[in-house]
């Protein structure tokens, strides 16, 4: 994996955040951490991370609402969405189809699952050939 990728971990649970941040660093990336949506917004705008690992439940809003707002403002950052309520298929479709989430991860997840998901999400996307005029 290319080094020095910036990954923002957004989770109000300090245990989950510490764990995810260490997994990010173990992959050679730089981890930024936010415990609230407000802090996440600040870091997103100031540091422009390559990937956001976003928890579904935050103290000041929920992850879905936060992400919808970022997309509506034109931010196309890659996102891994983690939630204990991932079985909600309605939200799952919204996340992948409407909000272009790279993957939805059910909590709890093992460190290996998260590491693989981060690696996959940071892979270069195939370039789309220009549309012929």
């Amino acid at each position, binding site marked *: 994996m290319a080094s020095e990728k910036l990954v923002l971990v957004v989770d109000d649970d300090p245990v989950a955040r510490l764990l995810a941040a260490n997994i990010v660093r173990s992959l050679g990336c730089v981890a930024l951490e936010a415990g609230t949506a407000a802090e996440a917004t600040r870091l997103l705008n100031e540091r422009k991370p390559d990937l956001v690992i976003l928890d579904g439940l935050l103290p000041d809003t929920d992850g879905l609402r936060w992400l919808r707002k970022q997309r509506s403002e034109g931010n196309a950052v890659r996102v891994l969405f983690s939630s*204990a309520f991932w079985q909600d298929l309605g939200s799952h479709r919204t996340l992948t189809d409407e909000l272009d989430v790279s993957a939805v991860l059910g909590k709890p997840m093992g460190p290996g699952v998260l590491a693989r998901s981060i690696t996959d999400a940071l892979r270069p996307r195939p370039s789309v050939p220009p549309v012929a005029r």
Partner: protein
Amino acid sequence: MSLATAPLRSHLRDGEMAPFPDVSALPILDQELVDELCRLAPLCDKDFLQSLLGEFAQSAGQSIGAMRAGVLAHDAKAIGNAAHRLRGASSSLGAVRLSRACIAVEKTLRGSHGALNLEKLQNTVDEALEALRIRFARE
């Protein structure tokens, strides 16, 4: 009545006292997940496992404290939020018995009846912390 076994009075009818969920048949830890954490440790920050343990102890203490305050205030939402936080922290570290106990608390609250035995929940936190301490010390 002691705070340790306080029912959620605003949600209870007389005589309705659900027992603390019997989670004793479950293992304290998900060994597979904990082993995975230990394998990760050499790639992580120095004292990674001790930091995780410290954060977990602090977070669990805060959650139990919030539940006690919620019981005193008859605030089922505050208790549920604290149980949810404790569930998240415990499941991240593979503390399955504690995680299941927290799920049971959340279900009890949703079902609008039941009793919250904070003493037993505290014991479940303590046994999870001790098991993790012993396991991490081997690394």
